[in-house]
């Protein structure tokens, strides 16, 4: 137990994490590129045309992984924030900040592609379905987190205020989801139910999983790049950062 926590503490120190992240970035980028090419070729060329939805269904190869990532990244950020508040590790907060733009991007993609998919499927760009609405709230929460952090100059307060807001949000998402579903069943107007997806062919499912893995690799690579920037910004007074900056000159 002691060794695990000491390893954790070692890599949670920015000075050791910075070079480690630098080494990992190319690997994750390559993995992301390979998986994206594989996933996209499966989704566009290999996966069969759906007998009900025609070619339009292919947007789910982007939509579903993006929606997964949007929620997953929020949970990861919330866990980082909880860790940061509990153990006062700066790096956890930096990871949360580094993930936020990627999470917001995936949320936006999920909403956008969702409405593109919705138009041919249900004849409307937007339906007030529980998932779609929760996704919209999720986007607001991401934007709220990013704007809150942008408005605060003091790094300690920025980290902690962001963390409190994120944790309040993570409690709220299930409540929002439940309340919208509740609201939807009452108002019979929107009879669309997104949960009854058509039974998927195995290639479709494989394509989707590969795309999800690609998004995952991409998110890790991008957030590592971003967290390295944050570390340099935050630690600019410490000796090891000055050394790095010297070598860059």
């Amino acid at each position: 137990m002691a060794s695990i926590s000491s390893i954790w503490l070692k890599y949670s120190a920015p000075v050791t994490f910075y070079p480690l992240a630098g080494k990992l970035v190319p690997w994750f980028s390559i993995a992301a590129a390979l998986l994206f090419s594989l996933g996209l070729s499966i989704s566009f060329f290999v996966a069969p045309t759906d007998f009900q939805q025609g070619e339009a269904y292919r947007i789910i190869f982007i939509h579903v992984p993006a929606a997964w990532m949007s929620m997953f990244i929020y949970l990861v950020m919330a866990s980082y924030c909880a860790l940061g508040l509990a153990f006062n590790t700066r790096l956890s907060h930096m990871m949360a900040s580094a993930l936020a733009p990627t999470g917001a991007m995936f949320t936006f993609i999920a909403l956008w592609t969702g409405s593109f998919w919705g138009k041919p499927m249900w004849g409307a760009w937007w339906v007030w379905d529980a998932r779609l609405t929760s996704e919209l709230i999720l986007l607001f929460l991401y934007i709220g987190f990013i704007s809150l952090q942008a408005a605060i100059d003091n790094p300690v307060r920025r980290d902690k205020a962001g963390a409190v807001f994120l944790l309040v949000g993570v409690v709220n998402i299930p409540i929002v989801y439940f309340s919208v579903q509740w609201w939807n069943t009452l108002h019979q107007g929107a009879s669309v139910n997104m949960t009854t997806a058509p039974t998927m062919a195995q290639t479709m499912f494989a394509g989707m999983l590969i795309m999800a893995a690609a998004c995952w690799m991409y998110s890790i690579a991008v957030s590592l790049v971003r967290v390295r920037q944050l570390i340099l910004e935050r630690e600019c007074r410490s000796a090891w950062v000055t050394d790095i900056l010297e070598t860059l000159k």
Partner: protein
Amino acid sequence: MLQAIDLECVRGDHCLFSRLNLSLKNGDLLHVQGKNGCGKTSLLRILTGLLPPTSGKVLWDGVTINALGGEYKKTLSYIGHLNAQKDDLSALENLMVSSRISAAPVSSSEVGAALQRFGITAAAQLPFRVLSQGQKRRVALAKLLLSKATLWLLDEPFAALDSSASDLLRTIVGAHLAQNGIAVISSHRELDIPGGTLKRLALGL
């Protein structure tokens, strides 16, 4: 006993102080000196626990102040550069309510006596906002006469005070030290406080 070990304070990109150690026992007076912006206020706020230091710790009787929590807060009285009085309440109401919030309630006659000693009896019933700067500062300092705290942390208490009020404050702090109290006072002037053991800390050198 108040101890600070290896305190470091960084504001923005600027390191105000680092490796700061101090130890104060009963009857000690610490005079924190230095130019504007050298970290006097930050140091006092760190000692109250309002501001977490960038690194290092503050101990009260050998225990960190975070661990003590409310127990430590009971032993201290902090007067910052803001007067901490509501504009729409009178001096009397202000002192009554702040004593209740700091969990050491006092009677209105005690407050009246404290205000009288600071020479603001006439203004006691007026809304705080109509008082002059000097009168406002006197009301804020009258809190000390009602305080049962051992540790006084005063941030530039002499600002806006005239000579008679300054003398009174010196006497009050002196009496506090004589009763085994501890005081930390930031001021860019000499303190001239009777009694107690004077220690000096110059910041920003």
